[in-house]
């Protein structure tokens, strides 16, 4: 399975568009973390930064997230499902409608099964339970496999 992950020239000259085979791990790029829990954003940021991701922005609400993603056009948006103003699915829909090219990865303290039906149809790359967030897990998901 082949997936195009990083658009040309976004993260600097060294990173060309490349094809990534599923068995390989995608190379980290830019990331926006959306979660209303500040301490959690901090922990996620530390963990993924350690894995090589560049955290370019953080948002605590759906509205702020839409604004931020439009301005920064990150490679990946790590998006909490439960937000104070709208849920993550609504944010994903709005981003898709706005033509965003960022890959959206939903995350939640709930399990995948709790959103079973909606995950099927949402314009997102995948779902990652919060406690399973790590550099390798995110890369695997982006490469096309659910962890």
């Amino acid at each position, binding site marked *: 399975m082949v997936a195009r992950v990083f658009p040309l020239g976004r993260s600097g000259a060294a990173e060309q568009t490349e094809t990534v085979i599923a068995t390989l791990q995608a190379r980290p790029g830019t990331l926006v973390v959306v979660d209303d829990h500040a*301490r*959690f954003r*901090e*922990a996620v940021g530390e963990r993924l930064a350690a894995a090589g991701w560049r955290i370019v922005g953080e948002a605590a609400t759906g509205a702020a997230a839409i604004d931020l993603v439009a301005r920064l056009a990150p490679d990946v948006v790590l998006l909490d499902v*439960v937000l104070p103003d709208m849920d993550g699915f609504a944010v994903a829909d709005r981003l898709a409608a706005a033509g965003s090219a960022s890959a959206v990865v939903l995350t939640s303290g*709930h399990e995948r*099964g709790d*959103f*079973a039906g909606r995950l099927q149809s949402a314009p997102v790359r995948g779902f990652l339970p*919060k406690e399973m967030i790590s550099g390798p897990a995110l890369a695997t998901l982006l490469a096309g496999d659910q962890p």
Partner: protein
Amino acid sequence: MPRWAAIAAIAGAGVFAAVDAVLEHSVGYPWYLSIPDALVGFAYITGGVVAFRAAYATAGVVAFRARRLDRTGTLMTAIGVITNLDSVALYVHALLPYAAWVGNLTVPLLAQLLLSYPSRVVRSRLERAVLAAAYLQVLVVNGAREVFVNLHHYYPCPCVHSFPTVHDPAVFRALETESRIAYVVIGGAVLALVFRRWQRSSGPARRALNPLWFAGLATITALILDDVAGFVRLTTVQNNVESAVVSVIQLSVPVALLIGLVRIRQSRSAVADLVLALDRTPGPAGVRQALASALGDPSLTVCYWEPENQSFVGADGRPADPRPPPGGAATEVTTDGAPLAVLVHDSELLDQRPLLDAVVAAARLALENARLQAALAAQLEEVRASRARIVQAGLAQRRKVERDLHDGAQQRLLALSLTIAMISDKLAASPGTDPDLTRLADTACGEISAAIGELRELGRGLHPAVLTNEGLAAAVETLAALAPLPVTTRISPARYPPTVEATAYFVISEALANVARHARASKAEVTACGDGDRLIVEVRDDGIGGAPARGGSGLTGLADRVAALGGRLTITSPPGGGTTIRAGLPCA
């Protein structure tokens, strides 16, 4: 007037009327008329006289028998008797002057009837004065007039009578003119008074009395015109036609009285019907229906006074407003001076005060019973509502606790798990780390994962997130997947109110848990589908059956919760025939 005397008078009038009619037909009436005139007179005789007298007599008897109208009946009968008198006098000539004397009593009698109907007495001073003048005129002046008449002037017959006479045509003519003028004046005054009474009445009362008043007005007008016609010289034919017309108009009075009596009787029978209806259909709803039909007001409502809450409630026990809407009126019903109920009805009913009073009196006991039932219903309604509120509050509380757990402690644990995972990663990456440290970090990582898992289970038990997010169908799929036996599901994808979805979910969850624990079943089936305004949930297994009718304590609690929402949970579990648990949940 004693009853026997009235009955005797009425019977006498009837006999006279019959004899009169027979004689008039066989002998010819009056015998001095020429043939063509007699033909005109025939219409008068048959159409007028017989019917007229019979009608007055009948109306008199009927009115007399309607107890409150005995005065009216007496007057009516008297009019019948007096109008018969001149016919009798034609055969018994000795009566002629007497008949001429009291014959005119018809007008004061009729006036008294109209001014006293239906209240028996004439209250107004003016009305009494006019009546007194009318009686005085007839009894005194007319009597004097007859003293001066030469009867042969009127009736060319050999008259023998005991009436004292003077035979002075000049005085007679003067008195006769005076009589006619007085007739017109008094008649006009009565006409005005009757019209005034009609104008002052209103609504249903006016409608009930209309026939008699219109007939009375027409009759008095006709009698005045008849009298005025006496000034003009008419041909015999004209005279007969005029007499016939006047007679026919006079007929309208007894007919109108009978119509009025029928109306009164109808309102009496309304009360009788009410008593029967109250006996047949007790309870607040039956009382309201019975009162509405007895009073002829389908919009009628009954508000019962609840002394405990110092407020009004309707038949269903819910709070009710006893203030009448525009065009409505409220009638308070008391028992021993204490408020009992308020009838809210059409304001037109106020004009039928006697009917309203009779109906209220007949219904008072039933109203007291209905009030007790309404009070009971009010308490039940209160209990039912508070039970539903408690269950809803409980469910809302569970949702809130689940959310708080998820948003609070769980988020912190999740952040912590990431941090510890990082520590673990870093320790693993740095060479020469104490292996104990790595092991401890891994242990902490596992513990936190376990804690997160337990917390998640706890939240799911409180209120499954999938139910809020995805609805009943997805939530039941999750349950089915976790069950230790094959479970087929057929769940309507529609969304229902949160309380209904939560209750349905917990019923299914508990039922599936029971299947796994007790049923020894090989498979189970879960269905949930809308049926009108209800959600029907059913869990069926093919196990050993024989579950206790009220289920285990878990199911009893669920049955209570279902009942609190106004639903019903039933368990069918014949030994060896599997178990079916079915709950109907109202969604309104």
